[in-house]
């Protein structure tokens, strides 16, 4: 499902964000990506939905070799993946509803279907009441939940979440992690970069730890730190 071979990523030719990364994630797995600030977690996730391309090595996701993928194919590839961005990336000039609906509009989803699925996703993150608000009118945690709803609404084959609970209180965080776990039970492959030690420790999933751009630990049913 996801396979990285000898991947290296340097920015501006001298900032090494990742190096010597070999990683394989099978369909249906749930992986926590942990490590200190600047370790390369976001960079790794960016490689997976091809926001970035590796400087060296191969990345293949959903059976596609991302290095060889034609530009025109990228949007169709991305539609099969749901991403919760670390900085949310909501469209400022659209309402909560429209932001979530946008993820379906880019596919050729029929209008009625869109309405149903968006309302359902907003219900899950507990934001139905705020559906007509603009992102600037939301609290940090509310914005983050919109981003989560947008990633879920497409029922993606892979769900990538970059620090999805950084702005959420423990009990809302708990709900979000349960949600991810449930999506995972239905067959979605989940990769979550997080600093939420308590939840990583509690959930006992596979943990991949990065440090200075290298994988230093990769254990099944692991915890946040050794």
């Amino acid at each position: 499902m996801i396979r990285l071979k000898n991947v290296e990523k340097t920015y501006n030719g001298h900032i090494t964000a990742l190096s010597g990364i070999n990683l394989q994630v099978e369909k249906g797995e749930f992986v926590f990506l942990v490590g200190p600030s600047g370790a390369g977690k976001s960079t790794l996730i960016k490689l997976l939905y091809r926001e970035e391309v590796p400087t060296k090595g191969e990345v293949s996701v959903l059976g596609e070799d991302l290095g060889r993928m034609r530009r025109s194919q990228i949007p169709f590839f991305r539609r099969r993946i749901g991403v919760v961005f670390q900085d949310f990336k909501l469209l400022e000039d659209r309402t909560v509803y429209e932001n979530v609906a946008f993820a379906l509009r880019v596919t050729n989803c029929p209008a009625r279907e869109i309405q149903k699925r968006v309302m359902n996703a907003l219900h899950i993150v507990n934001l139905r009441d705020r559906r007509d608000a603009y992102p600037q009118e939301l609290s940090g945690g509310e914005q983050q939940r919109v981003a989560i709803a947008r990633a879920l609404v497409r029922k993606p084959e892979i769900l990538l979440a970059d620090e999805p609970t950084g702005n959420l209180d423990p009990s809302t965080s708990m709900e979000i992690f349960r949600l991810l776990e449930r999506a995972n039970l239905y067959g979605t492959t989940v990769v979550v970069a997080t600093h939420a030690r308590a939840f990583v420790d509690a959930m006992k999933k596979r943990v991949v730890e990065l440090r200075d751009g290298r994988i230093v630990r990769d254990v099944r049913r692991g915890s946040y730190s050794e």
Partner: protein
Amino acid sequence: MFHAFAEAWKGLRRNGLSSFLSLLTTFIALSLLGATFLVEANLRYMFKTVEQGMDVQAFLKKGISPTEIGEILAAVKEIPGVSDVTYVSPEDGLKELREMFQDMASVLDGLETNNPLPPKIEVKTTGVEEIVSVASSLRGIPGVEDVIYQKEAQKKLEAIGRVLQIAGLAGVISMGVVSVLVIGNSIRLTIIARRHEVAIMKLVGATDGFITAPFFFEGLLLGFFGAVAASGMLIGVYYWLSGWLAATLPYLPVLPLDGPLTTDILTILVITGLAVGGFGSALSLRKYLT
């Protein structure tokens, strides 16, 4: 498709003031283009009129007989490049002079009884280029004593005509370029203000076409409305101005505001507006798509 159009409309409404100012910019740029076109068309028309007024005069033998005159007129009509011939008797000639210099009429008083003017014919040519050849043909006709035409004026007109054509075209083209730049820049700046949105759309899996289409339609709408407004304004002003000129300077040839002229303006402005608006936004976007 419909979705993109609806989005475009929403986009314009959402950014009310910006859209209005872009529309104004488009309007201004296209008005300038249209005005330049109108001036150019009028100059060309004026030149054409002056050119057609140009003629060759042939003085005939004094005391020539009406039959001879008839023969000469017939011969002149055969000359290629001649569009019209008129016979002017010495009496008519004096009247003409009197009219031309009415304020100095007393100067001509002495000539009444002792008319020194020879009979002459006035020959109109189809264009400036024909004058020289027509004149030399005229010289060969028996009964013609002298042939005169405004050599200098003719050369100058020819030169001006050429320059007008080039300058007019250059003017219209450069105004076209100005419109493109001014409108294009305003579109570009609008897109820069939304660069983050564009980047996000891409990450969520929108195709280039899906992202571009609303901007493209927004540009088209902007260009179209700007062009229609500019055409309306220009046609109104032209209507008023040409009426005023006809009253004040009746001898100034002004291109009449008829169907073809209206169509020309509309066509030029609408096509420029649509092209710049639509492709301007599509092209400006490319930078943020790749």
